[in-house]
Protein backbone atom coordinates (compact mmCIF):
# COMPACT_ATOMS: atom_id res chain seq x y z
CA UNK A 1 0.00 0.00 0.00
CA UNK A 2 1.45 3.34 -0.98
CA UNK A 3 1.68 6.27 1.36
CA UNK A 4 -0.78 8.13 -0.81
CA UNK A 5 -3.42 5.45 -0.47
CA UNK A 6 -3.13 5.41 3.28
CA UNK A 7 -3.60 9.14 3.59
CA UNK A 8 -6.43 9.62 1.18
CA UNK A 9 -9.35 8.29 3.30
CA UNK A 10 -7.95 10.02 6.35
CA UNK A 11 -8.10 13.38 4.60
CA UNK A 12 -11.71 12.69 3.61
CA UNK A 13 -12.55 11.79 7.21
CA UNK A 14 -10.91 14.97 8.40
CA UNK A 15 -13.04 17.03 6.07
CA UNK A 16 -16.26 15.46 7.41
CA UNK A 17 -15.00 15.97 10.94
CA UNK A 18 -14.17 19.58 10.15
CA UNK A 19 -17.68 20.10 8.79
CA UNK A 20 -19.13 18.70 12.01
CA UNK A 21 -16.77 20.73 14.13
CA UNK A 22 -17.71 23.83 12.19
CA UNK A 23 -21.42 23.19 12.75
CA UNK A 24 -20.78 22.45 16.42
CA UNK A 25 -18.90 25.76 16.65
CA UNK A 26 -21.66 27.70 14.93
CA UNK A 27 -24.33 26.15 17.14
CA UNK A 28 -22.40 26.79 20.33
CA UNK A 29 -21.64 30.38 19.36
CA UNK A 30 -25.33 30.95 18.77
CA UNK A 31 -26.22 29.46 22.16
CA UNK A 32 -23.60 31.56 23.95
CA UNK A 33 -24.72 34.71 22.20
CA UNK A 34 -28.33 34.05 23.05
CA UNK A 35 -27.52 33.26 26.70
CA UNK A 36 -25.50 36.45 26.97
CA UNK A 37 -28.43 38.52 25.71
CA UNK A 38 -30.72 36.99 28.35
CA UNK A 39 -28.17 37.54 31.12
CA UNK A 40 -27.73 41.15 29.99
CA UNK A 41 -31.54 41.51 29.94
CA UNK A 42 -31.46 42.52 26.30
CA UNK A 43 -34.79 40.79 25.81
CA UNK A 44 -35.79 42.69 22.69
CA UNK A 45 -32.56 41.65 20.99
CA UNK A 46 -33.08 38.10 22.21
CA UNK A 47 -36.53 38.11 20.56
CA UNK A 48 -34.87 38.91 17.26
CA UNK A 49 -33.22 35.49 17.44
CA UNK A 50 -36.59 33.80 17.85
CA UNK A 51 -38.41 32.35 14.84
CA UNK A 52 -42.00 33.33 14.06
CA UNK A 53 -43.24 29.78 14.63
CA UNK A 54 -41.38 29.00 17.86
CA UNK A 55 -42.75 26.56 20.37
CA UNK A 56 -41.33 27.37 23.78
CA UNK A 57 -42.47 24.67 26.16
CA UNK A 58 -41.70 23.44 29.66
CA UNK A 59 -43.86 20.47 30.64
CA UNK A 60 -44.53 19.57 34.27
CA UNK A 61 -42.28 16.85 35.65
CA UNK A 62 -43.56 14.41 38.25
CA UNK A 63 -41.90 12.10 40.73
CA UNK A 64 -43.00 8.70 39.42
CA UNK A 65 -41.83 5.12 39.84
CA UNK A 66 -39.50 3.60 37.27
CA UNK A 67 -42.35 1.47 35.93
CA UNK A 68 -44.43 4.61 35.40
CA UNK A 69 -41.65 6.67 33.83
CA UNK A 70 -43.73 7.24 30.67
CA UNK A 71 -45.82 9.64 32.80
CA UNK A 72 -42.85 11.58 34.12
CA UNK A 73 -43.54 14.61 31.93
CA UNK A 74 -46.89 16.04 30.90
CA UNK A 75 -47.68 15.76 27.20
CA UNK A 76 -48.20 18.62 24.73
CA UNK A 77 -51.72 19.96 25.12
CA UNK A 78 -51.90 19.15 28.82
CA UNK A 79 -50.70 21.44 31.60
CA UNK A 80 -47.21 22.93 31.43
CA UNK A 81 -45.23 25.73 33.04
CA UNK A 82 -44.51 27.33 29.68
CA UNK A 83 -46.42 26.62 26.48
CA UNK A 84 -45.69 29.71 24.44
CA UNK A 85 -45.79 30.81 20.86
CA UNK A 86 -44.02 33.93 19.69
CA UNK A 87 -46.82 36.29 20.68
CA UNK A 88 -46.71 34.94 24.26
CA UNK A 89 -42.93 35.39 24.38
CA UNK A 90 -43.38 38.94 23.12
CA UNK A 91 -45.83 39.52 25.99
CA UNK A 92 -43.35 38.07 28.49
CA UNK A 93 -40.68 40.42 27.18
CA UNK A 94 -43.05 43.38 27.25
CA UNK A 95 -43.93 42.47 30.83
CA UNK A 96 -40.26 42.17 31.82
CA UNK A 97 -39.59 45.64 30.42
CA UNK A 98 -42.66 47.24 32.01
CA UNK A 99 -42.03 49.73 34.80
CA UNK A 100 -44.40 47.73 37.01
CA UNK A 101 -42.87 44.25 36.64
CA UNK A 102 -42.36 43.99 40.38
CA UNK A 103 -41.00 40.44 40.32
CA UNK A 104 -38.07 41.67 38.21
CA UNK A 105 -37.58 45.16 39.60
CA UNK A 106 -35.06 45.38 41.20
CA UNK A 107 -33.85 43.02 38.50
CA UNK A 108 -32.71 39.51 39.34
CA UNK A 109 -29.16 38.52 38.39
CA UNK A 110 -29.18 35.53 36.10
CA UNK A 111 -26.47 33.39 34.56
CA UNK A 112 -27.32 30.98 31.77
CA UNK A 113 -24.83 28.13 31.37
CA UNK A 114 -25.13 25.76 28.41
CA UNK A 115 -23.08 22.61 28.04
CA UNK A 116 -22.97 19.02 26.69
CA UNK A 117 -24.13 20.34 23.33
CA UNK A 118 -24.99 17.41 21.08
CA UNK A 119 -26.21 17.74 17.53
CA UNK A 120 -28.85 15.06 17.18
CA UNK A 121 -30.22 15.78 13.71
CA UNK A 122 -29.52 17.95 10.73
CA UNK A 123 -32.46 18.16 8.37
CA UNK A 124 -32.56 20.74 5.59
CA UNK A 125 -31.92 24.09 7.20
CA UNK A 126 -32.76 22.87 10.70
CA UNK A 127 -30.43 21.56 13.36
CA UNK A 128 -31.87 19.74 16.35
CA UNK A 129 -29.69 19.86 19.42
CA UNK A 130 -29.78 18.43 22.88
CA UNK A 131 -28.10 20.47 25.63
CA UNK A 132 -27.71 20.60 29.38
CA UNK A 133 -28.38 23.94 31.03
CA UNK A 134 -27.92 25.57 34.36
CA UNK A 135 -29.84 28.75 35.04
CA UNK A 136 -28.62 30.39 38.22
CA UNK A 137 -30.59 33.33 39.57
CA UNK A 138 -30.01 35.51 42.60
CA UNK A 139 -32.56 38.03 43.71
CA UNK A 140 -32.72 40.85 46.24
CA UNK A 141 -30.15 40.27 48.98
CA UNK A 142 -30.24 36.59 49.75
CA UNK A 143 -32.44 34.65 47.33
CA UNK A 144 -30.86 31.96 45.20
CA UNK A 145 -32.64 29.85 42.60
CA UNK A 146 -30.80 27.18 40.71
CA UNK A 147 -32.39 25.34 37.83
CA UNK A 148 -30.70 22.60 35.87
CA UNK A 149 -32.17 20.50 33.13
CA UNK A 150 -32.07 19.32 29.56
CA UNK A 151 -33.27 21.20 26.53
CA UNK A 152 -34.01 20.17 23.01
CA UNK A 153 -33.72 23.14 20.71
CA UNK A 154 -34.31 23.42 17.00
CA UNK A 155 -32.12 26.03 15.32
CA UNK A 156 -33.03 27.13 11.83
CA UNK A 157 -30.51 28.62 9.40
CA UNK A 158 -30.98 32.34 8.99
CA UNK A 159 -28.57 34.45 6.97
CA UNK A 160 -25.20 33.77 8.60
CA UNK A 161 -26.60 32.48 11.88
CA UNK A 162 -29.70 30.75 13.25
CA UNK A 163 -33.16 31.47 14.55
CA UNK A 164 -34.54 29.56 17.52
CA UNK A 165 -37.50 27.56 16.18
CA UNK A 166 -38.18 25.30 19.14
CA UNK A 167 -37.16 25.14 22.77
CA UNK A 168 -38.43 22.27 24.89
CA UNK A 169 -37.23 22.52 28.47
CA UNK A 170 -37.10 19.49 30.76
CA UNK A 171 -36.38 20.80 34.22
CA UNK A 172 -34.79 18.70 36.97
CA UNK A 173 -37.45 19.73 39.48
CA UNK A 174 -40.95 18.47 40.17
CA UNK A 175 -42.06 20.95 42.83
CA UNK A 176 -40.54 24.22 41.61
CA UNK A 177 -38.35 25.36 44.47
CA UNK A 178 -38.81 29.05 43.75
CA UNK A 179 -41.52 31.60 44.25
CA UNK A 180 -41.75 32.24 40.54
CA UNK A 181 -40.17 31.64 37.16
CA UNK A 182 -40.23 35.22 35.96
CA UNK A 183 -37.17 34.65 33.85
CA UNK A 184 -36.58 33.05 30.47
CA UNK A 185 -34.78 29.73 30.09
Amino acid sequence: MSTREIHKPAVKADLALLERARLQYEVEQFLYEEAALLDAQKYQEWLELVAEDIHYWMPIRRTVTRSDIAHEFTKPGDMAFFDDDRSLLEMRVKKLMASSAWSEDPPSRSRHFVSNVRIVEVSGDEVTIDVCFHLHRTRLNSEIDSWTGRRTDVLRRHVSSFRLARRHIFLDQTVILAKNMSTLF
Partner: protein
Amino acid sequence: MNVEAPVAVDGWDESSIKRLFDTDTGWLDRRVHSDEALYRLEMERIFARGWNFMCHESQIPNAGDYFINYIGEDQVIVVRDERGQVNVLLNTCRHRGNALCRAERGNAKSFVCSYHGWNYGLDGRLIGVPGHKTYYRDALDRERLGLARVAKVENYLGFYFATLDADACSLHDYLGDVGRTGIGMLCAFGDVEVVDGIQKNVIDCNWKIAVDNLFDWYHVMYSHASANTAGFVELSKVLFPQNQMVMLGEYGHAISGPGLPKEMQNQINSLSHAERIEMAKALDHPLPRVRPHRASEIMGPEGVRSMGHPNIFPNLWITLEGLQMCLRLPRGPKHTELWWFTIVPKSASPDARRRMVQMATHLFGPAGLLEQDDGENWSQSTRACTGFAGRELGEFLAMGLGQDKVTTGENGQRYVETCINEHGQRWFYRAWREWMTGRDWSHIQKSTAIVNETV
Protein backbone atom coordinates in the same frame (compact mmCIF):
# COMPACT_ATOMS: atom_id res chain seq x y z
CA MET B 1 -62.25 16.43 68.05
CA ASN B 2 -62.65 18.56 71.14
CA VAL B 3 -59.67 20.66 72.08
CA GLU B 4 -58.68 21.99 75.47
CA ALA B 5 -58.84 25.61 74.47
CA PRO B 6 -58.74 27.14 77.96
CA VAL B 7 -55.34 25.59 78.62
CA ALA B 8 -52.50 27.70 77.31
CA VAL B 9 -50.51 25.90 74.62
CA ASP B 10 -47.02 27.29 74.07
CA GLY B 11 -48.15 30.43 75.78
CA TRP B 12 -51.28 30.87 73.64
CA ASP B 13 -54.64 30.69 75.38
CA GLU B 14 -58.14 31.51 74.23
CA SER B 15 -58.07 35.19 75.04
CA SER B 16 -54.61 35.84 73.63
CA ILE B 17 -55.56 34.11 70.36
CA LYS B 18 -58.83 36.08 70.18
CA ARG B 19 -56.90 39.31 70.52
CA LEU B 20 -54.87 38.51 67.39
CA PHE B 21 -57.64 39.78 65.16
CA ASP B 22 -59.87 42.68 66.09
CA THR B 23 -63.11 42.35 64.12
CA ASP B 24 -64.19 45.85 65.19
CA THR B 25 -61.21 47.61 63.63
CA GLY B 26 -59.75 45.14 61.14
CA TRP B 27 -56.32 45.09 62.83
CA LEU B 28 -54.54 41.78 62.47
CA ASP B 29 -51.58 40.89 64.65
CA ARG B 30 -48.64 40.03 62.41
CA ARG B 31 -47.61 37.12 64.60
CA VAL B 32 -50.36 35.05 62.93
CA HIS B 33 -48.02 34.96 59.92
CA SER B 34 -44.81 34.01 61.69
CA ASP B 35 -45.30 32.41 65.10
CA GLU B 36 -44.14 28.77 65.33
CA ALA B 37 -46.47 27.89 68.19
CA LEU B 38 -49.51 29.30 66.42
CA TYR B 39 -48.52 27.29 63.36
CA ARG B 40 -48.42 24.06 65.38
CA LEU B 41 -51.86 24.89 66.78
CA GLU B 42 -53.14 25.44 63.24
CA MET B 43 -52.05 21.91 62.34
CA GLU B 44 -54.13 20.51 65.20
CA ARG B 45 -57.12 22.80 65.28
CA ILE B 46 -57.65 23.73 61.65
CA PHE B 47 -56.06 21.16 59.34
CA ALA B 48 -56.67 18.05 61.48
CA ARG B 49 -60.30 19.04 62.07
CA GLY B 50 -61.48 20.67 58.85
CA TRP B 51 -62.26 19.00 55.52
CA ASN B 52 -59.18 19.08 53.27
CA PHE B 53 -59.35 18.81 49.47
CA MET B 54 -57.70 15.60 48.23
CA CYS B 55 -58.28 15.29 44.47
CA HIS B 56 -60.97 14.99 41.81
CA GLU B 57 -62.40 11.60 40.87
CA SER B 58 -61.02 11.92 37.32
CA GLN B 59 -57.45 11.85 38.69
CA ILE B 60 -57.91 8.32 40.06
CA PRO B 61 -60.42 6.60 37.73
CA ASN B 62 -59.17 3.00 38.06
CA ALA B 63 -58.54 0.56 40.87
CA GLY B 64 -55.05 1.14 42.24
CA ASP B 65 -54.78 4.73 40.96
CA TYR B 66 -53.36 6.94 43.67
CA PHE B 67 -52.50 10.58 44.25
CA ILE B 68 -50.40 11.92 47.13
CA ASN B 69 -51.69 14.91 49.05
CA TYR B 70 -51.46 16.41 52.52
CA ILE B 71 -53.60 17.14 55.54
CA GLY B 72 -51.54 19.81 57.22
CA GLU B 73 -48.10 18.23 57.29
CA ASP B 74 -49.41 14.65 57.26
CA GLN B 75 -48.82 13.08 53.88
CA VAL B 76 -51.73 10.94 52.68
CA ILE B 77 -52.31 8.44 49.87
CA VAL B 78 -55.62 9.00 48.09
CA VAL B 79 -56.32 5.67 46.39
CA ARG B 80 -59.19 3.92 44.65
CA ASP B 81 -59.50 0.29 45.74
CA GLU B 82 -60.77 -2.79 43.89
CA ARG B 83 -64.35 -2.06 44.97
CA GLY B 84 -64.15 1.45 43.56
CA GLN B 85 -64.06 3.10 46.96
CA VAL B 86 -61.68 6.02 47.53
CA ASN B 87 -59.54 5.57 50.63
CA VAL B 88 -57.32 8.18 52.24
CA LEU B 89 -54.46 6.54 54.15
CA LEU B 90 -51.59 8.07 56.04
CA ASN B 91 -48.47 7.49 53.97
CA THR B 92 -46.47 5.99 56.78
CA CYS B 93 -45.65 2.35 57.52
CA ARG B 94 -46.96 1.11 60.85
CA HIS B 95 -43.64 -0.61 61.56
CA ARG B 96 -41.05 2.17 61.49
CA GLY B 97 -42.86 5.06 59.83
CA ASN B 98 -41.24 4.97 56.40
CA ALA B 99 -43.27 6.37 53.47
CA LEU B 100 -45.06 3.69 51.43
CA CYS B 101 -45.42 5.83 48.32
CA ARG B 102 -42.54 7.96 47.23
CA ALA B 103 -43.97 8.74 43.80
CA GLU B 104 -46.51 11.57 43.75
CA ARG B 105 -49.02 9.64 41.63
CA GLY B 106 -49.34 6.30 39.93
CA ASN B 107 -51.06 2.93 40.04
CA ALA B 108 -50.33 0.21 42.54
CA LYS B 109 -51.63 -3.30 43.29
CA SER B 110 -50.62 -2.84 46.91
CA PHE B 111 -48.24 -0.65 48.87
CA VAL B 112 -44.97 -2.28 49.85
CA CYS B 113 -42.67 -0.58 52.31
CA SER B 114 -39.11 -0.26 51.00
CA TYR B 115 -37.68 -0.67 54.51
CA HIS B 116 -38.70 -4.21 55.60
CA GLY B 117 -41.24 -5.17 52.97
CA TRP B 118 -44.49 -4.81 54.89
CA ASN B 119 -47.27 -4.95 52.33
CA TYR B 120 -50.62 -3.15 52.56
CA GLY B 121 -53.75 -3.55 50.45
CA LEU B 122 -55.40 -0.65 48.64
CA ASP B 123 -57.79 -0.39 51.58
CA GLY B 124 -54.85 -0.13 53.98
CA ARG B 125 -55.08 -3.64 55.46
CA LEU B 126 -51.74 -5.20 56.33
CA ILE B 127 -51.63 -8.21 54.00
CA GLY B 128 -48.01 -9.27 54.14
CA VAL B 129 -45.17 -9.17 56.65
CA PRO B 130 -41.87 -10.82 55.71
CA GLY B 131 -40.88 -13.19 58.52
CA HIS B 132 -44.37 -13.23 59.97
CA LYS B 133 -43.98 -16.90 60.96
CA THR B 134 -40.24 -17.17 61.33
CA TYR B 135 -39.26 -13.96 63.12
CA TYR B 136 -42.49 -12.72 64.63
CA ARG B 137 -43.41 -16.36 65.35
CA ASP B 138 -47.05 -15.74 64.42
CA ALA B 139 -47.41 -13.34 67.32
CA LEU B 140 -48.23 -10.25 65.26
CA ASP B 141 -51.74 -8.82 65.35
CA ARG B 142 -51.94 -7.78 61.72
CA GLU B 143 -55.54 -6.58 62.06
CA ARG B 144 -54.37 -3.73 64.26
CA LEU B 145 -51.47 -2.73 62.06
CA GLY B 146 -53.21 -1.56 58.91
CA LEU B 147 -52.33 1.87 57.52
CA ALA B 148 -53.94 4.66 59.51
CA ARG B 149 -57.07 5.87 57.76
CA VAL B 150 -58.43 9.37 57.97
CA ALA B 151 -61.69 9.66 59.89
CA LYS B 152 -63.95 10.49 56.93
CA VAL B 153 -63.75 10.68 53.14
CA GLU B 154 -66.61 12.22 51.16
CA ASN B 155 -67.05 13.87 47.79
CA TYR B 156 -69.15 16.66 46.38
CA LEU B 157 -69.66 16.66 42.58
CA GLY B 158 -66.64 14.35 42.27
CA PHE B 159 -64.31 16.51 44.39
CA TYR B 160 -62.95 14.38 47.25
CA PHE B 161 -62.25 15.78 50.69
CA ALA B 162 -60.99 14.14 53.88
CA THR B 163 -60.89 14.98 57.57
CA LEU B 164 -58.95 13.47 60.47
CA ASP B 165 -61.76 14.33 62.85
CA ALA B 166 -64.42 11.67 63.52
CA ASP B 167 -66.65 14.37 65.01
CA ALA B 168 -66.62 16.47 61.82
CA CYS B 169 -69.99 17.29 60.26
CA SER B 170 -70.73 15.90 56.78
CA LEU B 171 -68.87 17.43 53.82
CA HIS B 172 -72.20 18.70 52.49
CA ASP B 173 -72.89 20.60 55.71
CA TYR B 174 -69.27 21.73 56.00
CA LEU B 175 -69.32 23.28 52.56
CA GLY B 176 -72.66 24.90 53.24
CA ASP B 177 -74.27 27.15 50.68
CA VAL B 178 -71.13 29.20 50.00
CA GLY B 179 -68.77 26.23 49.64
CA ARG B 180 -71.20 24.39 47.38
CA THR B 181 -71.67 27.52 45.29
CA GLY B 182 -67.89 27.73 44.97
CA ILE B 183 -67.48 24.17 43.74
CA GLY B 184 -70.59 24.63 41.63
CA MET B 185 -68.70 27.38 39.79
CA LEU B 186 -66.33 24.70 38.44
CA CYS B 187 -69.18 22.44 37.37
CA ALA B 188 -71.48 25.12 35.99
CA PHE B 189 -70.70 24.09 32.41
CA GLY B 190 -71.20 20.36 33.01
CA ASP B 191 -69.27 17.42 34.41
CA VAL B 192 -65.56 18.09 34.62
CA GLU B 193 -62.19 16.41 34.62
CA VAL B 194 -58.76 17.48 35.83
CA VAL B 195 -56.22 18.12 33.08
CA ASP B 196 -53.02 16.10 33.48
CA GLY B 197 -50.33 18.08 35.32
CA ILE B 198 -50.52 19.76 38.72
CA GLN B 199 -48.26 22.82 38.83
CA LYS B 200 -46.46 22.93 42.19
CA ASN B 201 -44.10 25.52 43.65
CA VAL B 202 -42.91 26.81 47.00
CA ILE B 203 -43.22 30.41 48.13
CA ASP B 204 -41.53 31.69 51.27
CA CYS B 205 -44.71 33.10 52.74
CA ASN B 206 -47.24 32.15 55.39
CA TRP B 207 -50.09 30.08 53.94
CA LYS B 208 -52.72 32.54 55.18
CA ILE B 209 -51.22 35.44 53.23
CA ALA B 210 -51.60 33.35 50.08
CA VAL B 211 -55.19 32.58 51.07
CA ASP B 212 -56.33 36.08 52.02
CA ASN B 213 -54.84 37.46 48.80
CA LEU B 214 -57.42 35.58 46.74
CA PHE B 215 -60.17 37.77 48.18
CA ASP B 216 -58.11 40.86 47.47
CA TRP B 217 -59.29 42.57 44.29
CA TYR B 218 -57.68 45.80 45.50
CA HIS B 219 -54.16 44.58 44.61
CA VAL B 220 -55.00 43.42 41.10
CA MET B 221 -54.71 46.75 39.31
CA TYR B 222 -51.40 47.58 40.97
CA SER B 223 -49.59 44.26 41.57
CA HIS B 224 -50.54 42.93 38.16
CA ALA B 225 -50.20 46.14 36.19
CA SER B 226 -47.40 44.65 34.07
CA ALA B 227 -49.63 41.84 32.78
CA ASN B 228 -51.96 44.59 31.62
CA THR B 229 -49.14 46.58 30.01
CA ALA B 230 -47.95 43.45 28.24
CA GLY B 231 -51.38 43.07 26.66
CA PHE B 232 -52.04 39.71 28.29
CA VAL B 233 -55.17 40.75 30.17
CA GLU B 234 -57.28 43.85 30.05
CA LEU B 235 -57.76 44.26 33.78
CA SER B 236 -60.48 46.85 33.43
CA LYS B 237 -62.58 44.23 31.63
CA VAL B 238 -62.38 41.69 34.43
CA LEU B 239 -62.20 43.81 37.57
CA PHE B 240 -65.53 45.68 37.83
CA PRO B 241 -64.45 47.58 40.97
CA GLN B 242 -67.93 48.97 41.56
CA ASN B 243 -69.73 45.66 41.01
CA GLN B 244 -68.28 43.45 43.70
CA MET B 245 -70.25 40.66 45.29
CA VAL B 246 -69.25 38.97 48.53
CA MET B 247 -70.74 35.82 50.04
CA LEU B 248 -69.68 34.87 53.57
CA GLY B 249 -70.24 31.29 54.65
CA GLU B 250 -70.15 29.01 57.66
CA TYR B 251 -66.81 27.64 58.84
CA GLY B 252 -65.00 30.51 57.13
CA HIS B 253 -65.73 29.88 53.46
CA ALA B 254 -66.22 33.01 51.38
CA ILE B 255 -66.52 34.20 47.80
CA SER B 256 -65.36 37.64 46.80
CA GLY B 257 -64.97 39.43 43.51
CA PRO B 258 -66.92 40.79 40.58
CA GLY B 259 -70.60 39.95 40.37
CA LEU B 260 -73.07 40.41 37.57
CA PRO B 261 -75.71 42.98 38.50
CA LYS B 262 -79.10 41.41 39.14
CA GLU B 263 -80.68 43.03 36.06
CA MET B 264 -78.00 41.54 33.82
CA GLN B 265 -78.54 38.09 35.31
CA ASN B 266 -82.29 38.47 34.82
CA GLN B 267 -81.64 39.19 31.15
CA ILE B 268 -79.45 36.11 30.87
CA ASN B 269 -82.08 34.01 32.65
CA SER B 270 -84.56 34.94 29.94
CA LEU B 271 -82.26 33.66 27.18
CA SER B 272 -82.48 30.20 25.67
CA HIS B 273 -79.47 27.89 25.68
CA ALA B 274 -78.68 28.77 22.05
CA GLU B 275 -78.96 32.50 22.75
CA ARG B 276 -76.59 32.15 25.70
CA ILE B 277 -74.04 30.41 23.50
CA GLU B 278 -74.27 33.26 20.98
CA MET B 279 -73.83 35.85 23.71
CA ALA B 280 -70.86 33.96 25.14
CA LYS B 281 -69.22 33.81 21.70
CA ALA B 282 -69.54 37.56 21.37
CA LEU B 283 -67.60 37.96 24.62
CA ASP B 284 -64.66 36.03 23.12
CA HIS B 285 -63.36 34.52 26.33
CA PRO B 286 -62.09 30.93 26.57
CA LEU B 287 -64.63 30.33 29.27
CA PRO B 288 -67.76 32.26 28.48
CA ARG B 289 -69.07 34.02 31.55
CA VAL B 290 -72.63 33.50 30.47
CA ARG B 291 -73.53 30.44 32.45
CA PRO B 292 -76.03 27.85 31.28
CA HIS B 293 -79.33 27.04 33.04
CA ARG B 294 -77.82 24.26 35.10
CA ALA B 295 -75.49 26.74 36.82
CA SER B 296 -78.36 28.29 38.81
CA GLU B 297 -79.26 24.86 40.12
CA ILE B 298 -75.83 24.24 41.64
CA MET B 299 -74.82 27.82 42.45
CA GLY B 300 -78.18 29.16 43.53
CA PRO B 301 -80.11 32.09 42.01
CA GLU B 302 -77.79 34.68 43.59
CA GLY B 303 -74.54 32.72 43.63
CA VAL B 304 -74.80 32.24 39.88
CA ARG B 305 -74.05 35.95 39.50
CA SER B 306 -70.66 35.63 41.17
CA MET B 307 -67.56 35.89 39.00
CA GLY B 308 -65.37 36.06 42.09
CA HIS B 309 -62.99 33.83 43.96
CA PRO B 310 -64.30 31.24 46.40
CA ASN B 311 -62.11 29.86 49.17
CA ILE B 312 -63.14 26.61 50.79
CA PHE B 313 -61.81 27.04 54.31
CA PRO B 314 -59.04 26.69 55.08
CA ASN B 315 -56.93 26.63 51.93
CA LEU B 316 -58.67 25.76 48.66
CA TRP B 317 -58.99 28.58 46.15
CA ILE B 318 -61.28 28.23 43.17
CA THR B 319 -60.86 30.51 40.19
CA LEU B 320 -62.83 30.69 37.01
CA GLU B 321 -60.40 32.55 34.79
CA GLY B 322 -59.22 29.18 33.51
CA LEU B 323 -61.28 26.96 35.83
CA GLN B 324 -58.62 26.09 38.38
CA MET B 325 -58.28 25.17 42.02
CA CYS B 326 -55.22 26.08 44.03
CA LEU B 327 -54.28 24.46 47.31
CA ARG B 328 -52.13 26.55 49.63
CA LEU B 329 -50.32 23.85 51.61
CA PRO B 330 -48.56 24.99 54.78
CA ARG B 331 -44.88 24.08 55.10
CA GLY B 332 -43.93 25.70 58.35
CA PRO B 333 -45.03 29.23 59.26
CA LYS B 334 -42.92 30.83 56.55
CA HIS B 335 -43.36 28.53 53.56
CA THR B 336 -46.30 27.50 51.43
CA GLU B 337 -46.62 25.06 48.54
CA LEU B 338 -49.04 26.10 45.83
CA TRP B 339 -50.67 23.28 43.87
CA TRP B 340 -52.68 24.25 40.80
CA PHE B 341 -55.35 21.84 39.52
CA THR B 342 -56.77 22.72 36.10
CA ILE B 343 -60.30 21.69 35.27
CA VAL B 344 -62.19 21.42 31.99
CA PRO B 345 -65.78 20.43 31.25
CA LYS B 346 -65.81 16.93 29.75
CA SER B 347 -68.04 18.27 26.99
CA ALA B 348 -65.56 20.97 25.91
CA SER B 349 -64.63 20.85 22.22
CA PRO B 350 -60.93 20.22 21.52
CA ASP B 351 -60.57 23.89 20.62
CA ALA B 352 -62.33 25.12 23.76
CA ARG B 353 -60.26 22.73 25.87
CA ARG B 354 -57.05 23.94 24.24
CA ARG B 355 -57.95 27.58 24.91
CA MET B 356 -58.82 26.87 28.54
CA VAL B 357 -55.59 24.96 29.15
CA GLN B 358 -53.59 27.74 27.50
CA MET B 359 -55.29 30.37 29.64
CA ALA B 360 -54.62 28.36 32.80
CA THR B 361 -50.97 27.85 31.84
CA HIS B 362 -50.31 31.50 31.14
CA LEU B 363 -52.29 33.10 33.94
CA PHE B 364 -51.25 31.38 37.16
CA GLY B 365 -48.56 29.02 38.34
CA PRO B 366 -44.96 30.16 38.95
CA ALA B 367 -44.46 31.26 35.34
CA GLY B 368 -47.98 32.70 35.03
CA LEU B 369 -48.06 36.26 33.77
CA LEU B 370 -50.27 37.25 36.69
CA GLU B 371 -48.90 35.12 39.45
CA GLN B 372 -45.22 35.94 38.97
CA ASP B 373 -45.68 39.17 40.85
CA ASP B 374 -47.65 37.81 43.82
CA GLY B 375 -44.88 35.76 45.39
CA GLU B 376 -42.64 38.68 46.18
CA ASN B 377 -45.43 40.65 47.88
CA TRP B 378 -46.29 37.64 50.01
CA SER B 379 -42.73 36.73 50.91
CA GLN B 380 -41.79 40.30 51.85
CA SER B 381 -45.00 40.67 53.89
CA THR B 382 -44.18 37.44 55.73
CA ARG B 383 -40.63 38.58 56.30
CA ALA B 384 -41.81 41.81 57.94
CA CYS B 385 -43.70 39.76 60.56
CA THR B 386 -40.49 38.73 62.32
CA GLY B 387 -38.92 42.14 62.96
CA PHE B 388 -39.20 43.19 66.59
CA ALA B 389 -40.65 46.58 65.76
CA GLY B 390 -42.39 45.59 62.55
CA ARG B 391 -44.46 42.81 64.03
CA GLU B 392 -45.93 45.26 66.57
CA LEU B 393 -47.44 47.32 63.76
CA GLY B 394 -50.19 44.91 62.76
CA GLU B 395 -51.84 44.57 59.37
CA PHE B 396 -54.76 46.76 58.46
CA LEU B 397 -57.86 45.15 56.97
CA ALA B 398 -60.48 47.84 57.42
CA MET B 399 -61.71 48.50 53.88
CA GLY B 400 -65.51 48.62 53.85
CA LEU B 401 -65.73 47.65 57.52
CA GLY B 402 -69.19 48.36 58.92
CA GLN B 403 -70.26 50.01 55.69
CA ASP B 404 -72.10 47.24 53.84
CA LYS B 405 -75.45 45.51 54.26
CA VAL B 406 -76.02 41.78 53.96
CA THR B 407 -78.94 41.00 51.67
CA THR B 408 -80.91 37.79 51.85
CA GLY B 409 -81.94 36.84 48.36
CA GLU B 410 -84.04 34.14 46.76
CA ASN B 411 -83.49 30.71 48.30
CA GLY B 412 -82.08 32.41 51.38
CA GLN B 413 -78.65 32.99 49.81
CA ARG B 414 -76.94 35.84 51.61
CA TYR B 415 -74.64 38.27 49.86
CA VAL B 416 -73.16 41.74 49.94
CA GLU B 417 -73.08 43.98 46.89
CA THR B 418 -70.52 46.72 47.11
CA CYS B 419 -67.32 48.14 45.66
CA ILE B 420 -63.81 46.72 46.20
CA ASN B 421 -63.54 45.74 49.87
CA GLU B 422 -61.82 43.56 52.46
CA HIS B 423 -64.84 41.66 53.78
CA GLY B 424 -63.51 38.28 52.59
CA GLN B 425 -60.16 38.74 54.32
CA ARG B 426 -61.86 39.77 57.58
CA TRP B 427 -64.23 36.82 57.37
CA PHE B 428 -61.31 34.47 56.87
CA TYR B 429 -59.33 35.75 59.88
CA ARG B 430 -62.46 35.91 62.03
CA ALA B 431 -63.11 32.24 61.24
CA TRP B 432 -59.42 31.41 61.80
CA ARG B 433 -59.76 32.86 65.29
CA GLU B 434 -62.83 30.73 65.98
CA TRP B 435 -61.20 27.53 64.67
CA MET B 436 -58.13 28.21 66.81
CA THR B 437 -60.19 28.65 69.96
CA GLY B 438 -63.39 26.69 69.23
CA ARG B 439 -63.64 23.65 71.45
CA ASP B 440 -66.03 21.65 69.29
CA TRP B 441 -67.85 21.69 65.97
CA SER B 442 -71.03 23.29 67.26
CA HIS B 443 -68.99 26.18 68.65
CA ILE B 444 -67.24 26.71 65.31
CA GLN B 445 -70.48 26.37 63.38
CA LYS B 446 -72.31 28.87 65.59
CA SER B 447 -69.49 31.37 65.75
CA THR B 448 -69.07 31.44 61.96
CA ALA B 449 -72.79 31.69 61.15
CA ILE B 450 -73.68 35.11 59.85
CA VAL B 451 -75.98 36.88 62.23
CA ASN B 452 -75.12 40.48 61.51
CA GLU B 453 -77.01 42.51 58.95
CA THR B 454 -74.02 44.76 58.49
CA VAL B 455 -70.47 43.66 57.79
